[in-house]
């Protein structure tokens, strides 16, 4: 656990800016302002209401942090977290290029070896079994065509 004194306040400011941008720029450009029938609410009412609530509670968060010095005990982001997120995004891109059935063994082996190089023969076996289960269950039994990727589509 790590205690940064003003993290909550900074998050609050970010959310407040987000709510202002959403309320004044995004919502008017993304939702047509039409009402239907007598007493009907405009389609933008609920998104605006949610944004107003985010804005109000962000102000509460900022005040509670800067004035009352309330800071929740946030957790430190681990050293490998950004790399794992990178792996997740890379896997996504790889699926879109070569498809799920080819991208998955590459991703799984790379991430397993990145985490520990000790038992790589076991990794290969696990990956083969995993791919077979996916192929049989989704493609053969459920007849779902798994993403093929633009190279094989």
């Amino acid at each position, binding site marked *: 656990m790590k205690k940064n004194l003003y993290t909550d306040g900074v998050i609050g400011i970010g959310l407040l800016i987000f709510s202002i941008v959403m309320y004044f720029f995004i919502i008017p450009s993304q939702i047509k302002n039409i009402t239907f029938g007598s007493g009907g*609410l405009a389609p933008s009412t609920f998104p605006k209401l949610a944004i107003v609530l985010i804005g109000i509670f962000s102000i509460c968060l900022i005040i509670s942090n800067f004035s009352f010095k309330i800071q929740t005990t946030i957790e430190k982001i681990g050293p490998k977290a950004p790399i794992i997120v990178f792996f997740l995004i890379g896997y996504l891109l790889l699926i879109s290029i070569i498809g799920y059935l080819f991208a998955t063994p590459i991703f799984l082996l790379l991430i397993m070896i990145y985490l520990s190089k000790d038992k790589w023969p076991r990794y290969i076996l696990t990956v083969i079994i995993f791919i077979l289960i996916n192929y049989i269950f989704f493609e053969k039994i459920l007849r779902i065509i798994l993403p093929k990727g633009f190279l094989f589509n």
Partner: protein
Amino acid sequence: MLESLLAGIISVMNVNVFLGIISGVSVGIILGAIPGLTATIAIALIIPFTFYMDPVVSISMLIGAYKGGLYGGSISAILIGTPGTDAAAATIIDGYAMAKNGKSGKALRIALYASVMGDMISLLALIIIAPMLAQVTLKIGPIEFFALIVFSLTIIAGMGGESIIKGLIAASLGLLLATVGLDPIIGIRRLCFGMAELDSGIAIMPMLIGLFAIPEVIVQLEYPLESNVPVLGLSKIPADNKVSWKEFKKCLKSILIGSGIGILIGAIPGIGSSVSSWLSYKTAKDRSKYPEKWGTGIIEGIAAPEAGNNAVCGGALIPMLTLGVPGSIPVAILMGAFLIQGLIPGPMIFSENGPVVYGIFASLFISNFFLLLIGFLAIKYTAPYFCNVSKVILFPIVIGFCYVGSFALNQTFFDVKIMVIFGVFGYLMRKYKFPAAPFLIAMILEPFGERALRQFLIISRGQITLVFYHPIAVVLLVLTIIFLVVFITKNLKKARTVI
């Protein structure tokens, strides 16, 4: 009601339901026993496999996984002193102490008996209370329903985490994201940014797979992996691995206390099985004749929290089935599964889908039997292996399942992207202590709440003051304001003590 229940029992007497329950309970126990994987993740990972099943089979399998997961958490709590799930944390105190005394088999068995009994008692409560409550809730109109949703969300946001304000922000973010898609009354696009895939809104299942499974994977892998902790095995003396009738009778009081608390806590939105198990432990200890022995490895110290956390399951299904309001994350996910199957939880579910609902009740009974059976087998043969599964292999595989699972429902790659986005978002929420429960539940309930309020305003020709002719709605809205004030004052008081 008895006739409907009998019809339900007959409808589930087929191989598919049995196979569904067996696989649900087994996967739940295994995933629950692995530290880092919870009952919630078990349900989220199983859902993709249930899309194409019959509603009764699908829901039975998921509830089986929920129950199995709740019990499975106690296996690692007892054998390695690390709870497989948050709900099993209280079980460590006496469970691990008992295992260290060489009685791990006895501890695992009493945890199983207490879990099954807690489940059974809460199921009876569900079967008795839910249809009666549904009769009452049938009378509530759109504005009462809207007020009920606002009230429940406030309670969930206020009780969910360390900071009430962050809970409220999370709920508001959930409300905002739920408005993405076509407007429910007029049908024009809202916040779709020109993407046709968003017309039907953000798909719930990829979102929740991302929100719950991916952050857990990142959290488990973000630091260098530690070597596995030693697992305490079963004793070679048979008596140490069994629970005698005398010992079981000694635990009955604790089981009943735990079950009662579990049902109550489950029925109140926003609390969950972790609180239930701690409260059950504490209450049973306070009422014990020898409270000083608690913590040294006594059998009642396992029975109370285990009955307490499993009884939450039936209790939590009461508001979900009768009011359409899920009180906790696993139940919100289950509600998502109901919606996918075309079953809309709420007062009408008993009249519109009676046979299916009673079929699910009947399958819950059967799943208790299988929980007992599979639990026995797990204790005897496999339990120690679950606790020491290699994280290097397991968590990448979980990621693989998340990708294929989020693709499977709508068969669109866009859903996989949604899953990844929410995975990273959920991880940041977790790190910065924004509770996920209010976010998810707000996202599920917003469409119902919005539709209800807009229906009311159309009927009342825009006169919002007509709400004062609806006393239940007024009471709920006043209670919402009172709770909001109480929560925020409590937060500020806590802050002053921190300073």
